[in-house]
């Protein structure tokens, strides 16, 4: 009996850390419980089985199945890997505090805190704040209810109203991952002592309070160094670069040409570095057109840059014009160049007032300019805010679709996908090189270029290839993660925050829905990336540019998310993956085929059970096949043995009694 309690406790912590025991229970029901029981059965024979082994073993199926509750469990798994032999900790589970990561320390703890869960109601328990996480545990329920979230997820902490009649004060936590949490606890009698929520406010925003982000302390060692996943030279080499038309330049080695660009850039062979500098002068923030991807057959290229500094007077730059002409000439298949401006034409025109603008077709002959009508970061932020209102905590049953439409979220997704589709189509079907830019070329441009590359190149649909894509198009080309996410910054109203990267991941998810066998990674992989976008556990999404990352010595001081992911790739693998890397994927960008990513946006709602039984069934079949294969082989061996013996008995018999059976591989 005791053992059972421990086990259920243990599962709580490892499966989810979440949310809600109901949902959790569900996930166990769906897959986990059976597996867990198997695991339990095993371990009861050999009690010495270390917990971490069991946890990884038992946790596997949940990933493929449920997307909603496993997410945070990733925050735990590294810890397990960190202390694989901590057997004694089984007992600690029954305690009210979390298991700590290396270098994680408890900052404050408060008993009798009420968590007002929108689904279950008020729960009373113990709240712990560490330098990494917020941990709430309610022991009254069976199994215990646990809420565990990294502080990085918190975007705002505020006191709601004054003290109630019972002397309780209430705090609300707005989170970056589409949920709000509400706590209440007794007002401190000792007014000198700080409330745990004041401690929380300090720890949740280390940047604003002069503290260190936890990623810089977390010293977990993984088998692989994730910072080595992306090597620009190797990636360009994979694409066949440099070649007779394109060269790799070192002009930005010290980030002097452009401080938001990577050090390694691919430019046309014919343009010397001196000219690049003159082109940089004409492009916003010096972000010159450089090659992102080249078609292996047609040599059509995807080029990214920022807007030209045309201004009100329609300024021109001979160097820039020549530069684009050279880019066009590098592709012998086409005598045209498409310039995709991600913005709505109105906004692009408005930019002229601020010195920016777009390429006029007069100045750039043979170039065709297309506006993709994607809105700016502020519109996107507003859209996500509305979406959160619609999906959290509860969904209004009637008018669901109208409410969803009113957020415009999927419309934005559609526009981004449609833009990327047009780019991919021009490159693939039209064999034409394309130039993509928006204003600065680090938000919409990153979305479009990377999505087009996912469509065009099967390599980016693998687990490692996707990591390379993020490292390359997003991190090295200076998508400003620090500003867009606001790691550790309490200024939640900052106009620079925007869910640009989330949108990109959403678009990728939409594609995985349409092509369920074309991606090596699963939904859980995407959710894990998003969770650690905010968690501040890994250094991957810190800082705004490659230059800053080098300066902060991130590879030295922090752990990369890819180290964690690549240490257990099976968790993130789509079992249905068929490697048809040569296929170009053209998704259908009609609203009819776009849907809200329930597994991410509505994962906190226990009623929205994830519906991925296919993977489960597939895995069962795989196991069955392996088992049968084994038995067939055994039998075969036996048959051959027998026939051998029988043939030896009847020596000289010319006929073979059994034909060898072909086994499947």
């Amino acid at each position, binding site marked *: 009996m005791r053992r059972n309690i421990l086990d259920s406790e243990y599962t709580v912590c490892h499966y989810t850390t979440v949310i809600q025991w109901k949902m959790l229970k569900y996930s166990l029901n769906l897959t986990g419980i059976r597996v867990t029981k198997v695991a339990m059965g095993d371990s009861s024979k050999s009690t010495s089985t270390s917990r971490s082994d069991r946890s990884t073993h038992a946790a596997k199926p949940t990933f493929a199945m449920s997307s909603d509750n496993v997410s945070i469990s990733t925050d735990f798994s590294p810890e397990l890997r960190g202390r694989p032999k901590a057997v004694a900790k089984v007992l600690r589970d029954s305690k009210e505090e979390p298991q700590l990561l290396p270098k994680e320390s408890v900052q404050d703890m408060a008993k009798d805190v009420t968590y007002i869960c929108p689904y279950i109601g008020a729960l009373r328990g113990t709240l712990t704040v560490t330098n990494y996480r917020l941990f709430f545990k309610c022991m009254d329920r069976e199994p215990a209810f646990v809420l565990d979230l990294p502080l990085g997820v918190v975007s705002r902490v505020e006191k709601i109203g004054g003290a109630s009649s019972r002397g309780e004060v209430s705090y609300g936590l707005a989170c970056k991952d589409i949920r709000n949490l509400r706590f209440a606890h007794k007002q401190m009698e000792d007014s000198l002592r700080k409330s745990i929520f004041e401690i929380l406010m300090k720890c949740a925003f280390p940047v604003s309070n002069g503290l260190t982000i936890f990623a810089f302390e977390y010293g977990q060692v993984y088998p692989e160094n994730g910072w080595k996943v992306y090597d620009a030279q190797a990636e360009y080499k994979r694409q066949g670069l440099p070649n007779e038309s394109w060269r790799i330049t070192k002009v930005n080695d010290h980030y002097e040409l452009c401080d938001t660009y990577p050090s390694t850039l691919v430019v046309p062979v014919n343009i010397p570095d001196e000219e690049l500098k003159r082109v940089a002068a004409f492009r916003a923030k010096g972000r010159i057109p450089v090659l992102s991807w080249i078609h292996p057959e047609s040599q059509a290229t995807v080029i990214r840059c920022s807007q030209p500094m045309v201004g009100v007077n329609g300024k021109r730059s001979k160097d820039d014009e020549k530069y684009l002409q050279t880019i066009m000439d590098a592709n012998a298949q086409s005598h045209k160049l498409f310039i995709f401006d991600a913005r709505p034409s109105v906004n692009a025109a408005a930019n002229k007032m601020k010195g920016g603008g777009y390429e006029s077709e007069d100045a750039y002959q043979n170039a065709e300019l297309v506006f993709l009508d994607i809105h700016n970061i502020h519109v996107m932020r507003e859209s996500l805010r509305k979406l959160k209102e619609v999906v959290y905590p509860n969904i209004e*049953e009637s008018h*669901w679709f109208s409410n969803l439409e009113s957020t415009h979220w999927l419309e934005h997704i559609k526009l981004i996908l449609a833009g990327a589709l047009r780019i991919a189509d021009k490159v693939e079907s039209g064999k034409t090189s394309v130039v993509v830019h928006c204003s600065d070329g680090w938000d919409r441009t990153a979305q479009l270029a990377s999505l087009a590359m996912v469509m065009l190149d099967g390599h980016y649909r693998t687990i490692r290839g996707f990591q390379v894509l993020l490292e390359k198009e997003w991190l090295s080309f200076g998508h400003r993660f620090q500003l867009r996410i606001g790691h550790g910054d309490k200024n939640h109203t900052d106009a620079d925050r925007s869910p640009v990267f989330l949108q990109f991941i959403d678009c990728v998810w939409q594609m995985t829905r*349409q092509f369920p066998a*074309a991606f090596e990674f699963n939904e859980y992989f995407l959710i894990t990336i998003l969770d650690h976008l905010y968690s501040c556990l890994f250094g991957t999404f810190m800082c705004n540019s490659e230059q800053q990352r080098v300066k902060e010595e991130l590879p030295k001081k922090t752990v990369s998310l890819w180290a964690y992911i690549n240490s257990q790739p099976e968790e993130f693998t789509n079992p249905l993956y068929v490697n048809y890397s040569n296929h170009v994927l053209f998704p*259908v960008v009609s609203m*009819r085929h776009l849907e*809200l990513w329930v597994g991410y946006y509505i994962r906190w709602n226990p009623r929205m059970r994830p519906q991925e039984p296919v993977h489960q069934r597939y895995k069962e079949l795989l196991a069955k096949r392996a088992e049968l294969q084994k038995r067939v082989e055994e039998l075969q061996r036996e048959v051959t043995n027998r026939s051998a013996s029988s043939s030896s008995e009847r020596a000289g018999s010319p006929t073979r009694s059994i034909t060898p059976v072909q086994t499947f591989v």
Partner: protein
Amino acid sequence: MRMFDGRVLLKQVILLFWPLISTWVQGAEKIDSCQLQVLEMLSSLGSAGGKSAKPSFVSYVTPEEIKSEKEPSRKEKHPDLLPGEVVFCSASTVLKYTQDDLSQRGVFGVLLCTNFRVSFVSDEEPTEEMGQLFKNKLYGENDIPLSCVDNIYGGSEDKRKLITGGLVKNKYPSKMIIHCKDLRVFQFSLSFSKEEDAKKIFQGIVHHCLEPKSLRCLFAFSYCENTSYPEAQRKKQTVMFDSVEDWTQDMKRTKGNCRVVSENSNFELSPKLPQYFIVPKNVSDEDLTKYQGKGLPMWCWSHHSGCALFKTASIPLVQEDNVPQTYMEKMLTAVAHNHLYSVKTEDLSDTLPTVQDILLSYNKFKQFFLIDNTTEFWMSDMKWFSSLDNCGWLDIIRQCLQKAVEVVESLEKENTNVLIMEEGGSDLCCVVSSLVQLMLDPYYRTLLGFQSLVQKEWVAGGHAFLDRSNHLHLKDKVESQSPVFLLFLECVWQLQQQHGPAFQFSETYLTVLSDSVHVPVFTTFLFNNDGHRDSLLRAESPHTQRSPLNCPTVWDWSVQFDCKAQDLFTNPLYTEKPKQDTSVRKSYRPRHLRQLSLPSSAFKTPPKKGFFKDEADNLKKILGVKRLSRWMLSPSSDSPQTSSSVREFYEAWQTKPLDYHGLLLPCLDGPSIRVWMQRYLRWIHDVQILGGGPVAMLSKVSEILGEVQELQRQLDRHGCTLTSNHKGARPRAKTAAAVIAARSSVRLSSSFPFVTSRNWAFKPAIPTSLLQSLMVTGMPGNLADREDDGGPESLV
């Protein structure tokens, strides 16, 4: 022969340059002689066969008369006619637009109207395609069974007008648009045919598709006279519920304890009652004959606890007469006696939409998929979600599912008998009772079980298929038309989407079944009830009075599809019930024992406006009668209660381990109720996901399933070789795996298997008209105009 070849060649040349020629012709004010020549040549080429057969506008004419007038020389232009099929009229040089684009391109061919279908036979040699595996044997991709025609529009230039039947004298539109009930859209241009032919074919099609006709003119009758079907084979598969044994068997299976009525086997009690049915034990013989079967509780299904589900046609309350009231109370007592003296009543007419609501909603809904051109499609794309909400179709589906969950809750949780009723008792009663059984009884989630369920609840249950589909276009039946059966299939699809591994049949099966309703060959969907079927089949029988006409039912799938195609009806995700679990059902039983006490006073509910008014209060007290219903039109205080109770029931169920062979409940929250993509989007070119869609996933699963089965076979074979020395020559079981895997080389799309390997240009559909509507509507303030980077302070 040489001459003929030359003409074909010439024609191909003309076709090649057709877009050019047509613009040239249309653009000119006067058509000069040269152009006329071209046009004439074109039309004469098409009608190479000579004069057309005289069209018949009298549908009561006997087939023989038409046959005699038919000219043998036309034969090469015919589709392969079915037994008993005759051509009414035809026209050559009809242009069928290819729907895919706006360029007005198309193929020329002959348009025919037979007593079965409207058919277009292309002049071009049919290219033998790989994708013929899922071919329907009765009609091809360019055929429209007459009862499948939904609406016909006449078009000229950019206007189009709905044709409503009635003789369209001497006028015919240059363009004819046909919307089908299976959501295909055909567009034909008649402007290149001879005027006489064009007029005849147009009038012929309008006449045969839209004008009232007698049931005898439906194709089934002439078809069945000319074909014979082995009946024995059918019997084995699906339980037809046309005999006492079938009913007894089903009651035994569910351990019910009611009375099988066979007194109506010759429809002596009432022609509207089923031939055989089951009532509670306490219903006396004289009760059976009252009110033509109205108010009579018909058994549907017994729960393992002993309580059961009944349905009935409600008796309209006549105020001056108290007799129905007492009769109803008596019947209710009989139901209550079935188990634990408890009964809940549920008047579906009060709580669910009417059949008219269903029709109206569906008519709005289907318009989203009957797309004439791409521009229209992309225009409607922006408002897709709110349009979905506005038509209310998904909400009706949700309401039906929710009602079924309420009934399931009463049966499963409270173990009370449930009596659902509505006027007629054969529409929403059928929907709800079948759904309840699907959720509770895993047998009905197998393919044969599902077919038996449809037989039991819908065919024997007396759903008025003929009136609801109005195949005959009778003016007085327009009101009764309603896609109730489709609504049921929609609900099943939702369940199946949410719990894939629980169902043995596939999505494709449901889609094909929904199409088959409009193929007037199967007796399943042609009649209003048992009595109707019996009288007509007997009357139509060519032989003696004894043996009625032998027609196939829809379950004779081989009439439509060959074996390979039928493999796609099974769901590769389905997991069969493990054998050792057979005792599970019994093990549940003790749980209910504690509820063996009579309902206590806790059952008292505040008096509500209901079927049983205050007079019945005493009865309610005695029996613990409760109403499940809430009033939809007047949202009274109990409506949120019901839905929250359903919610709690769902959540409680959710926390238990999911057993695909146990109780299944659907999630009803907004995002969970979805559009049946395969059925509705399969013909729309722009939304086909090439190389993707569910088939990409399912093919992988079936592939490995095939391997597992192959291994199992090997294992068996080896086992055989080891034990005895003869090889177990087991027949190779066919799987869907083989079908799909065989075609893995072909690029499959999301519309698989309905549209396959058409040589679509591998080009993505780029949406047009992207932004117009997006930002005009209330984008707050100046967000859209702002710069990406906030203010000067943020320039880090």
